[in-house]
């Protein structure tokens, strides 16, 4: 089969011949980016929450030392993975784990692992900032009704922080879709790897990369629109409806306010 003369013709030629493998490469890119972003967010939430935990003078000495130690370790993690290129990290981890520990990761594991811990390092800082941006009043309100630190974080602070950092999570997903291309250095067959192969086969670098550009752009645009929708959902409805007593199926006779004695009795039953 010979290569058509026109630019459009060559693009059609590549799509017909390599369309499927390029789609498969794009699929790989998407899956790695998604897994990496989700796992990275989980790592980021855990690390960021620990980083934002104040060291309390009233805690036992052991707890304070432990917390300080964990914080230092996590600090090093964040600095190392934010401060070095992902491409170098990929080589370092993939070949390093084989040489040093004799662990031979398969491509998928290596790819997801690298993207996850890289995203985790970025998200940790974002989450920490998100937590610090929630007004103290929210924490005090929660503590005043008897919530412990963990409950306060889980039910009050983190949900609000999550809402605030949704745009950042979206950003990370977009970045991950683009940056998985560096994983081609360890042989992950994602979109960019496929593109290199295709352009090499017929010397159609420009044409192949035009198609690839369009595919990356399509993925990032669709996903950012999708994330906008999720953001809106998290914001909740703009309006609320006034409830009437029947929609609540609430009969005021069901519960009478107990006298002091009854209240005390109740407490004993409760505990």
């Amino acid at each position, binding site marked *: 089969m010979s290569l058509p003369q026109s630019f459009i013709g060559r693009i059609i030629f590549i799509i017909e011949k390599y369309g499927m493998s390029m789609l498969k490469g794009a699929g790989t890119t998407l899956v790695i980016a998604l897994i990496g972003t989700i796992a990275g967010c989980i790592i980021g939430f855990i690390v960021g929450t620990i980083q934002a935990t104040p060291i309390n003078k009233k805690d036992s000495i052991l707890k304070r030392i432990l917390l300080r130690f964990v914080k230092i370790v996590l600090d090093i993690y964040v600095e190392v993975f934010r401060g070095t290129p992902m491409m170098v990290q990929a080589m370092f981890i993939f070949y390093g784990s084989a040489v040093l520990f004799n662990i031979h990761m398969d491509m998928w594991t290596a790819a997801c692992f690298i993207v996850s811990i890289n995203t985790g390092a970025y998200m940790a800082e974002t989450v920490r900032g998100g937590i610090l941006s929630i007004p103290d009043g*929210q924490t*005090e*309100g929660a503590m*005043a*009704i*008897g919530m412990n630190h963990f409950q306060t974080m889980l039910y009050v602070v983190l949900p609000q922080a999550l809402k605030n950092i949704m745009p950042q999570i979206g950003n990370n997903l977009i970045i991950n879709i683009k940056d998985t291309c560096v994983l081609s250095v360890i042989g992950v067959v994602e979109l960019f790897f496929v593109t290199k192969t295709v352009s090499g086969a017929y010397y159609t670098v420009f044409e192949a990369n035009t198609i690839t550009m369009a595919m990356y752009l399509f993925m990032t645009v669709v996903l950012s629109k999708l994330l906008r929708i999720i953001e809106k959902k998290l914001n909740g409805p703009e309006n609320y409806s006034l*409830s*009437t007593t029947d929609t609540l199926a609430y009969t005021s006779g069901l519960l009478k306010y107990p006298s002091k004695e009854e209240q005390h009795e109740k407490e004993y039953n409760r505990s």
Partner: protein
Amino acid sequence: MKKSIIEVKHLKKSFGNHEVLKDINFSVKPGDVTSIIGASGSGKSTLLRCINLLETPTSGEILYNNEDVLLSKNIPSYRAKVGMVFQNFNLFENMNVLQNCMIGLTKVLKLDKEKAKKESLFFLEKVGMLPYVNAKPRQLSGGQKQRVAIARALAMRPDVLLFDEPTSALDPQMVGEVLSVIKSLAKEGFTMIIVTHEMAFARDVSNQVVFMSDGVILEKGTPEEIFVSPRNEKTRIFLDRFMNY
């Protein structure tokens, strides 16, 4: 004589080298409504926050049913018994009105959902916020937010309720709705400690008034003693200024 439910003894609190509370002593019996009045910066909020352990006192004792809470291992369970209503409401922004009231019941008191909902609705009705159960805090007026905050605190069925200037952040026309809720609670015999700048309200609602100045209690007594015939010169000056404005 009835036993004290809260007793503050030789309480001191410093921020750095700024001694904000200097040897505070007072006690509250079940059913007491105690108003704390005094000039801005005299340490009223700090005192209330110390009682709820949102601030850690520098020294002294806070006895709750005769036990020093500063030695307590389980501070959250003490806080669940001593409710707090804040000047800025501090409603959870990520929850609607009903969820704000329910969360403490389900997560702290471990009531089941059904029960928690019934209790919450009961107290929301009490403060007149039943129609707004689905609203988010940001969709409410200040007075409505504060009434929800009161319902949230009440739903925990605390033994003592602390109020830190519950109406200071409100427009004048909303002050009344919140004060009347607190008054009705006083009638029902709730034990309350209220920091307020509303002198007429303090006089009507409380059976003990505490006047603070520069981190000490200068005078305490019945509303008549404080408002009609204050013994301390500073109390008189403070009240005069208030009545004139």
